[in-house]
């Protein structure tokens, strides 16, 4: 039994496009996951803002099911789930903490819990950019993009130590370069978008996401590429709010990296959920298709 897949709640709702494209890309690469049966929410921000034990209990329940299935690793597309699952595993190393969590779970959890990885890290480590490049059928020619990881994908540094420099990860860049895109170094790639403050403190999220969008737009890119359901939502769905906060008008499509990879792999666009993007991806697709055509003429 190898890798168990934990989709996270957003996958079943707001980020069904991320989920769809992730599955499509993994299929295309030949990466197979076993679905995690009877999974539950990792607790997200509300749980850990309320109680560390409660948050851990929710995460550990998932890890425990995976452990009992004999999973070596757990994969998740969502950085927030990733962070909660990893932190929970780490905290469970302390016996007193484990005891409190087991009490909440009404039973003793498995002694050895599997480690969680982002789907992105697994793709990168298992296949590497060379293999990905090999798999490309319709390179992302003529597209200038910037990668945005959000603040959680590479942090906290000590629990994400296997993901490169916490302030300047390079995994997504390598993958997209392998797909043929021109990737600019985005200095705000790990800055916070405002995350779940979008609900209680809309202005704060608008300001933070606005800074990210403004800098990205100044760099003259065609699209921003995200890896987190919540970041994508703040930058895409709330792009107008962010624009208002900055006194600017933004029109910057925000893709998931899996959508971009799927495009390059020649997967049908309808299988990538592009129709769910709020800021229209049309200009990007047109530019790309034009560039591809030009290539054919050459």
């Amino acid at each position: 039994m190898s890798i168990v897949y934990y989709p996270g709640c957003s996958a079943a709702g707001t980020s069904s496009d991320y989920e769809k494209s992730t599955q499509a890309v993994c299929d295309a690469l030949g990466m197979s996951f076993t679905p995690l049966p009877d999974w539950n929410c990792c607790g997200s921000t509300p749980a850990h803002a309320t109680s560390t034990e409660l948050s851990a209990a929710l995460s550990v329940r998932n890890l425990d099911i995976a452990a009992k299935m004999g999973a070596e690793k757990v994969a998740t597309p969502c950085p927030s789930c990733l962070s909660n699952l990893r932190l929970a595993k780490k905290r469970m190393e302390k016996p007193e903490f484990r005891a409190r969590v087991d009490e909440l779970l009404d039973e003793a959890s498995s002694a050895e819990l599997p480690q969680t990885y982002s789907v992105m890290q697994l793709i990168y480590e298992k296949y590497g950019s060379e293999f990905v490049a090999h798999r490309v059928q319709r390179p992302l020619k003529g597209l200038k993009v910037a990668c945005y990881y959000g603040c959680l994908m590479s942090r906290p540094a000590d629990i994400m130590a296997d993901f490169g420099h916490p302030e300047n990860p390079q995994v997504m860049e390598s993958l997209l370069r392998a797909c043929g895109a021109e990737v600019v170094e985005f200095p705000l790639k790990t800055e916070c978008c405002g995350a779940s403050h979008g609900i209680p403190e809309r202005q704060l999220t608008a300001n933070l996401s606005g800074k990210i969008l403004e800098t990205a737009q100044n760099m003259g890119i065609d699209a921003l590429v995200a890896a987190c359901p919540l970041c994508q939502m703040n930058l895409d769905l709330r792009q107008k709010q962010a624009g208002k906060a900055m006194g600017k008008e933004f029109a910057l499509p925000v893709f998931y990296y899996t959508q971009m990879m799927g495009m390059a792999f020649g997967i049908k666009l309808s299988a990538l959920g592009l129709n769910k993007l709020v800021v229209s991806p049309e200009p990007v697709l047109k530019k790309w298709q034009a560039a591809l055509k030009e290539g054919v003429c050459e």
Partner: protein
Amino acid sequence: MRIGVFICHCGSNIGGTVDCAKVAALAATFPDVVYATDPMYTCAEPGQAAIEEAIKNYQLDGVVVASCSPRMHEPTFRRTVERAGLNRYMFEMANIREHVSWIGKDIEANTNKAAELVKMAVAKLRNNKALHAASFDVNKKVLVIGGGVAGIQAALDCAEGGIPVVLVEREATIGGKMAKLDKTFPTVDCSACILGPKMVDVAQSPNITTYAYSEIESISGYVGNFTVTIRKKTTYVDWSKCTGCGACTEKCPSKKTPDAFNEVTGLTTAITIAFPQAIPKKAVINAQHCKKLLTGKCGVCAKTCPTGAINYEMKDELVTETVGAIVAATGYDLVDWTQYEQYGGGRYPDVITSLQYERLLSASGPTGGHIVRPSDGKEPKNVVFIQCVGSRDRSIGRPYCSGFCCMYTAKQAVLTKDHMPDSQSYVFYMDIRANGKLYDEFQRRAVEEYGTEYIRGRVSKIYPDGKGHLIVKGADTLLGQAVEVEADLVVLAVGVEAAKGAARLAEKLRISYDSYGFFMESHVKLKPVETNTAGVYLAGVCQGVKDIPASVAQGSAAAAKVLSLFSKDKLQSDPQISQVDIKRCIACGKCVQTCPFGAIELFDFRGQQKARVIETVCQGCGLCTATCPQGAIQLAHFTDNQILAEVDALCQC
């Protein structure tokens, strides 16, 4: 044997948790002890006088003092017993302060342990023998390693005292970091103007031989008689012919060589003279950029040089010098700040180091003293300084304060306003450390007279906004809010670490260094200039961060140590060294291999190979005694019999 025992109270340091009177009473019952007492302060003048009295009154031929660490007062008490006519090795010390009273609170247990330690000391003393030091000549010549301001000061003071000095500097010119600075706090006087004359004095002093562009290859010997091999690195210029006219540097076509002296803020030629006031003022070819050395084609400098000094065939040269003392003054280097990815990791041209900024400020720098942005050559308006980059940061393993960056940042802010009255400087700081003479006043002036905006907090990110500015994002922890400053230029006050290769040099010098590579002094408070290797002294930042006044002071202090060492014509060797019992020696040679100092050699004794110890080289470490399978080597004052007597005494307790 008649032994006297003194159990010191050390005020309440020992007396507080050890029943000293009881230990003295117990000691009186130990074999050969004829007198035991418990003075309040044994090391004080009356305490020492009491020991001398007792030696006379009770005809003692050995003394035990139970008090502090022997590193503190063993030399003191050895002199005391000597004054009363005993051999200085007929003395033993038991450490009942650091090893007993300071580490335990239980009076009864402490008292018992103190008594045991005293019993061991008595047992050892009963096996002691008088030892006599041999004396040897001192080579009254000193080696100074590193020609920064600290090394220069040490060299000049020694030379002034009539001592020949060998000064070894790894760069092409002496001067160190100070030569690169524009002005200096707190008086804002020109660095070159105050350092230049000292450098000239070095060049003109008949007592100083300078080896620039040279490094230490190896060091052997001991205090008074060191032998040093110096590697003169290849300059491709015969310095005995070079007049420093600079004709070659004007003609060299390889004009894109990074200028190391200018901290790569500018370009220079492949053949260079570091700067106009360089000492020695000699040219050096940078082999990585010389067309002739890389491709075989060019040779312009050889054709240009009026004295025919260029020699493309030149090789490193080794020279040997003998000296009696060594001053290490190798200074520091800056931490590699490019590990801070959040500051761009070195990718943004307008994020520079403080030392680079000094070169931009300097009239002899690459821009003639005009402050311009490296990216576009334009004058910046908003300059942001960030302190503690690579200092006080556990996350990169640099927990210490670099000491002088708070002050030079204030200086740089002041100079920025002087150079560009329309500019605005911002300083992000953790807290201000301005504890020198006139320092706080100076830093206040930067705020009050020069309008520098000080923002208390760390910077979390620097990023280009895509429109030609850098956004510096951080926390203002006084206002409790996030701040962003739009900067044209960002200057990082990069922290200090030991000079590159310091650890390797320390190993050659056989001195200790801390986990950051700074050389360890003999005692943090009381022996800040000495090392634990006799005859090796420290000056400047190589020992720990310090500014120019403190570096100069330590340079002079090191010179004073050398001069006082050289005030004697002969030095006494330590008799606590190994001796080979040739009757037992089977010449297996194990000791020869083990000795880290090369102090044992095999020799021919009436047709048989035997080992012998070279007395002046042996440091008394005792490794060989533990190695010898025959038990043929004994370390004087720590013989097997002496140590076993201690063990026996302990086992009987």
